[in-house]
């Protein structure tokens, strides 16, 4: 790859000066003249009820109130806040059965905190005071919190199109037998020497991005709908809002503000529809809607919880012959992306090991919980918790070292990846495992922790994962990029990719500078305005560097090609015979023949005629590069985590002592950015394994939709952490890079669970693994033996 000047360097991130001084504007920080404030009235008495009467009159009389809106006062169109329906063809949409089942306001309330009506007032305080004056009466309906409850034949139906409250199952047309499968599972199991099998529960983890949802909308004098939001997906939200309010895309503009964390919580729309509906009711006035933390919790999607059954068969020598699995998730009140996670949870399973046969069923059931959707990893942490524990149970019974087993049986180059028919084209998982084992002292510790007897027992466990860089070929992958070459030989890169804080604008700028052969400071990434930027799917599926970077690379190569073509004309040489160094284009082997990029760029803009001979001086026309990029692959990253824990056998407390994360990242465009993703992912993965769950009482009232009662790993809880970046360039990634946005959260989940198993000799089947569950499992084990 030659000498890289910018790629691979720890350059200063594009946005950190603004962030460290507080100058970065998040949506809540934007203040417009004449701003009004919205407040949504939600039901906090029931998780399932029908509104029998709604009286808005007292609220409308309150001081400062401009308007009060009930369900009939806003668009009657239904929508789906997620965007999966826009990432597949119309035919596929039909096959998947994605539906629009959300309304701006509703009289059939399906979860704690569902929306009934709204107030628009001159201040937040006035809106809140008026909201208290709204009088509602309800008819209480039965509450279904699990798939097991809502699938009962006598259960009230959430949607007529979805009988049995089954929002989704793998469709027969795309998945014969409603399964994602290869081989003959039953037959393969008959060849197994022994079988491990269990039913697990995976939890309803919340992203807890630090910025709660904040939105502004303005229906302006040009009859354009403007929305300020920190969405991960500006272009898809633009189209979604255009559809919902029946406007052409030219009349919808998203102003993408700085994102205070996403992790999937802002994939698609959250409260953009509500905010825009309020703004449409008061044309010419901007309306701001600020979600308190507790409301943001209930209105943005969580991870999909549910029952996850799995069965694996092995031969005595460890050969994995069969895997059968079923994930029934508790979808929550609305469809959102019921299809997506139900599929990918199995895809990550299928992408990992060389079972002779595999069969996976994924189903989503409506429940009266808050909605589920995208959360970093998109089904992968769930699969990691279950698959990796069962593999370790198998290894223990076989007496095989879990790292050796994984090295022998993980899929690799040439094997089908998570999508059958798309084989892996790079894989450095063996190196990840070897280096992680070496770094933590796997062999010695594994030996040392056998047969412990004390109160505090240590354990060490491993887990691996495969993921993806973009969702091709299941979902549309496409980014448009324009590069404008200024007359001073600097360049502005215009595209719609958002930066959730992970650093993608920085790495995209590095890619641009490297391809253009410019200094990092000579390139600017312009984003945030859907009027100007071409299409982009948005930030999800660890795609922004891989797909957005691919688009930037191609558009910058277009600029280079134009520069070389023009230089060839000026120098009267063949373009193939030219090379560029420090912004000067030279003729190979003729050091005196050259022209600067500055001259070419300037002549393109400031083009004049030679008054003496009437000829143009240089080549006219400002140079612009363009790419409409569809990636050729999905460059799956691989990763391994080894965790070491100490368990107190009397209290059940788990202390995580160390994590070593070794990831096959292709190429670290910015090592600090990659490390940051692994560090942050690990904090969330540990939380999923050990502490994080959204709890509801039997009436469906959420018990911990706040930081007060939802326990995340804090600064002192975090273990010693080592990240190992294995750079094995992917042939299709920009400079060999793979996506790493999600990878970091995944293997800490299974590794932590396996370390606990190693320490105490029992597996905990429910996430999060709390002290109570450990004590209960130890007690059961004692009773059996």
């Amino acid at each position: 790859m030659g000498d890289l000047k910018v790629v691979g360097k720890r350059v200063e991130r594009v946005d950190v000066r603004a962030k460290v001084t507080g100058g970065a504007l998040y949506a809540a920080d934007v203040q417009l003249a004449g701003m009004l404030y919205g407040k949504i009235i939600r039901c906090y008495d029931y998780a399932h009820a029908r509104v029998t009467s709604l009286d808005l009159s007292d609220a409308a009389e309150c001081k400062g109130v401009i308007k009060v809106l009930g369900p009939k006062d806003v668009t009657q169109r239904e929508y789906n806040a997620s965007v999966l329906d826009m990432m597949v063809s119309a035919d596929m949409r039909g096959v998947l059965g994605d539906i629009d089942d959300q309304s701006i306001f509703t009289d059939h309330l399906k979860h704690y905190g569902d929306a009934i009506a709204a107030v628009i007032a001159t201040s937040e305080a006035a809106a809140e005071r008026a909201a208290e004056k709204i009088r509602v009466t309800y008819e209480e309906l039965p509450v279904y919190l699990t798939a097991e409850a809502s699938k009962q034949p006598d259960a009230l139906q959430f949607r007529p199109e979805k009988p049995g409250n089954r929002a989704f199952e793998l469709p027969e047309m795309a998945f014969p037998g409603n399964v994602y499968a290869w081989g003959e599972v039953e037959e393969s199991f008959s060849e197994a020497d022994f079988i491990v099998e269990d039913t697990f529960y995976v939890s309803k983890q919340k992203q807890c991005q630090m910025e709660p949802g904040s939105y502004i909308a303005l229906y302006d004098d040009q009859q354009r709908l403007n929305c300020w939001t920190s969405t991960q997906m500006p272009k898809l939200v633009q189209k979604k809002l255009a559809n919902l309010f029946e406007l052409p895309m030219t009349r919808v503009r998203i102003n993408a503000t700085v994102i205070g964390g996403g992790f999937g919580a802002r994939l698609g729309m959250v409260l953009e529809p509500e905010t825009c509906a309020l703004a449409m009711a008061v044309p010419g006035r901007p309306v701001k809607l600020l979600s308190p933390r507790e409301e943001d919790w209930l209105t943005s999607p969580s991870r999909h919880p549910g029952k996850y059954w799995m069965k694996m068969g092995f031969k005595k020598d460890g050969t994995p012959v069969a895997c059968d699995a079923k994930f029934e998730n508790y979808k929550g009140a609305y469809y959102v992306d019921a299809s997506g996670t139900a599929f990918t949870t199995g895809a990550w399973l299928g992408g990992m090991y060389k079972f002779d046969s595999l069969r996976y069923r994924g189903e989503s059931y409506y429940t009266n919980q808050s909605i589920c959707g995208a959360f970093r990893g998109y089904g992968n942490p769930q699969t990691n918790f279950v698959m990796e524990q069962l593999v370790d149970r198998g290894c223990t019974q076989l007496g095989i070292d879990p790292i050796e087993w994984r090295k022998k049986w993980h899929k690799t180059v040439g094997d089908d990846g998570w999508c059958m028919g798309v084989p892996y084209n790079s894989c450095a998982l063996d190196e990840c495992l070897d280096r992680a084992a070496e770094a933590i002292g796997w062999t010695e510790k594994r030996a040392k922790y056998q047969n412990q007897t004390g109160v505090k027992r240590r354990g060490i466990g491993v887990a691996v994962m495969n993921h993806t860089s973009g969702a091709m070929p299941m979902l549309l992958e496409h980014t448009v990029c324009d590069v404008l070459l200024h007359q001073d030989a600097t360049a502005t890169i215009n595209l719609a990719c958002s930066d959730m804080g992970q650093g993608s604008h920085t790495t995209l700028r590095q890619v641009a500078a490297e391809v253009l052969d410019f200094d990092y400071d000579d390139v600017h990434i312009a984003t945030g305005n859907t009027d100007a930027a071409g299409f982009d799917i948005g930030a999800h599926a660890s795609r922004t560097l891989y797909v957005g970077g691919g688009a930037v690379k191609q558009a910058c190569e277009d600029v280079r090609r134009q520069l070389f073509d023009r230089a060839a004309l000026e120098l009267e040489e063949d373009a193939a015979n030219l090379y560029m160094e420090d912004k000067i284009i030279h003729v190979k082997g003729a050091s005196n023949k050259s022209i600067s990029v500055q001259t070419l760029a300037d002549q393109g803009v400031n083009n004049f005629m030679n008054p003496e001979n009437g000829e143009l001086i240089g080549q006219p026309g400002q140079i612009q590069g363009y790419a409409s990029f569809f990636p050729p692959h999905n460059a799956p990253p691989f990763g391994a985590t080894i965790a070491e824990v100490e368990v107190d056998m009397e209290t059940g407390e788990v202390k995580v002592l160390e994590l070593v994360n070794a990831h096959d990242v292709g190429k670290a465009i910015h090592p600090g950015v990659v490390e940051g993703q692994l560090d942050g992912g690990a904090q969330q993965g540990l939380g999923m394994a050990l502490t994080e769950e959204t709890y509801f009482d039997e009436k469906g009232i959420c018990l911990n939709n706040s930081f007060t009662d939802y326990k995340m790993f804090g600064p002192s809880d975090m273990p010693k952490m080592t990240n190992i970046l294995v750079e094995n360039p992917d042939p299709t990634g920009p400079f060999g890079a793979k996506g790493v946005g999600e990878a970091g959260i995944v293997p800490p989940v299974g590794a932590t669970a396996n370390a606990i198993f190693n320490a105490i000799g029992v597996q905990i089947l429910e996430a999060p693994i709390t002290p109570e569950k450990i004590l209960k499992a130890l007690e059961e084990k004692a009773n059996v033996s």
Partner: protein
Amino acid sequence: MKKHAITLTVNGEERDLIVPSNRTLLDALRDDLGFTDTKYGCGTGECGACTVLVDGTTSINGCLTLAATMDGRSITTAAGLARDGDLHPVQQAFIDNDAIQCGFCTPGMVLKTISILDENPNPSEAEIRQGLEGSICRCTGYTKIVEAVQDASNRLSGLGE
């Protein structure tokens, strides 16, 4: 509700304002005075996004503090740390150690760091982690933030030499 005429010195500038008794310092800073660098993350004292410094180096949660009780006091927010375009050493340490991702926790983290280092100029790693409890970051896993605080401690004690 009773209203109070108060004076706050914010980042060195004196501001007069009238606040109802229940107005939090966070709302007064953000909404009345436009210091939107002070963030709302939870409103319940759990996350530290609203951290500001009182009278130089004491950190408090703006969301738990009533503005009226701060009459006559001096408040520092992240916007008030840079001097003539030069970042405060703690801010520079956060940049140089890649301790900033989404940045939503950053103003509060930087201010918290100043108060930690004021109390204990050479904290151990455990002391840093203890000091940061109550300041939530969901992006970084705290690793690089802890490194930034260590680095800032070195820089500041270097300055004092």
